[in-house]
């Protein structure tokens, strides 16, 4: 006998993602899901972002790694509320563990923006919605300019693409135009910002993007 149906496979993650979305909407909080390879510079990007934050943004960060609280420690040193999730063997964060994290994060501090640093991985995190407002891809110039074409799922889904480690550009054969073209084939709308997190060069458009994201929420 053949039983025909159309049942969603990740319905439990999707249900938690909807729960998260409702939680955030109720509290006027925006959430971004930061995705990139291990070592792409996600934590460095967050550290520099914290340095440049205006007073409009009250930031909270959720860190996802297989093991250790090293990234959370780096963020905490900057004085920003942070919650570390260790996934053990999990290659991605799921909406349920993020729910617990965001509840913890929001208990004693007023927050209007949560950034989730997902587990370093260009593949799996793209498949699991966390209830975020937008996905942000982080790609460093040392990873090669073919990664957008090689890992299309993530790049079709993101709302922003950040190219990091621009200070190292001249030591590589990374071609920004190649990346831009490949990205546009997959994604018509999302802006691409190139920047360097150690010097802070190129950060203005990104900071403007964050301010606009939070403001949009305020005016609701």
């Amino acid at each position, binding site marked *: 006998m053949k039983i025909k*149906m159309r049942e969603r*496979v*990740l319905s*439990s993650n999707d249900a938690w993602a909807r729960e998260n979305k409702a939680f955030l909407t109720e509290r006027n909080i925006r959430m971004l899901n930061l995705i990139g390879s291990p070592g792409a510079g996600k934590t460095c990007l967050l550290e520099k972002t914290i340095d440049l934050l205006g007073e409009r943004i009250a930031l909270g960060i959720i860190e996802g790694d297989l093991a250790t609280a090293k990234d959370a420690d780096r963020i905490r040193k900057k004085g920003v509320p942070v919650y570390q999730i260790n996934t053990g063997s999990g290659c991605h964060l799921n909406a349920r563990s993020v729910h617990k994290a965001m509840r913890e994060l929001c208990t004693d501090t007023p927050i209007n923006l949560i950034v989730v640093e997902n587990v370093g991985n260009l593949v799996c995190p793209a498949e699991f919605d966390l209830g975020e407002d937008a996905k942000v891809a982080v790609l460093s110039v040392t990873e090669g300019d073919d990664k957008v074409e090689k890992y*299309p799922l993530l790049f079709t889904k993101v709302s922003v693409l950040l190219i990091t480690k621009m200070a190292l550009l001249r030591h590589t054969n990374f071609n920004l135009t190649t990346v831009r073209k490949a990205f546009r084939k997959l994604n018509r709308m999302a802006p691409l910002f190139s920047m360097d997190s150690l010097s802070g060069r190129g950060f203005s458009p990104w900071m403007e993007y964050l301010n606009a994201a939070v403001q949009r929420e305020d005016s609701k």
Partner: protein
Amino acid sequence: MHELSVVDGILRVVEIQKRKHRFSRVKLIEIICGKYNCLSEDNLQFCFDAATESSSLKGARLKIVRRGEDYRCAACNAEFGAESESLPTCPACRSTDVIPRMDYAVYVRSLEVE
């Protein structure tokens, strides 16, 4: 290993269907997903086999069907499906301003049972 999360989801779906239809064995599970979903049949089967080693689902085969993407043309509003790797042009008006529908969800499409 996101295959484990997917296998877990598949097992939930099968469990619910089993309560409804009372079958004893599953021969084939057909999964449908978008062209960009990062699922490989081999990896999924491997994880599925490991997860069902000592259950009544042992030996069931998984098959992944990839659907083409659906698009809407921003210029003329035509809706169409396409298999191409990059954004296609609208078959009605040739505009390149097309918007993918982006249904990335993974579904179970059918179960062959006895």
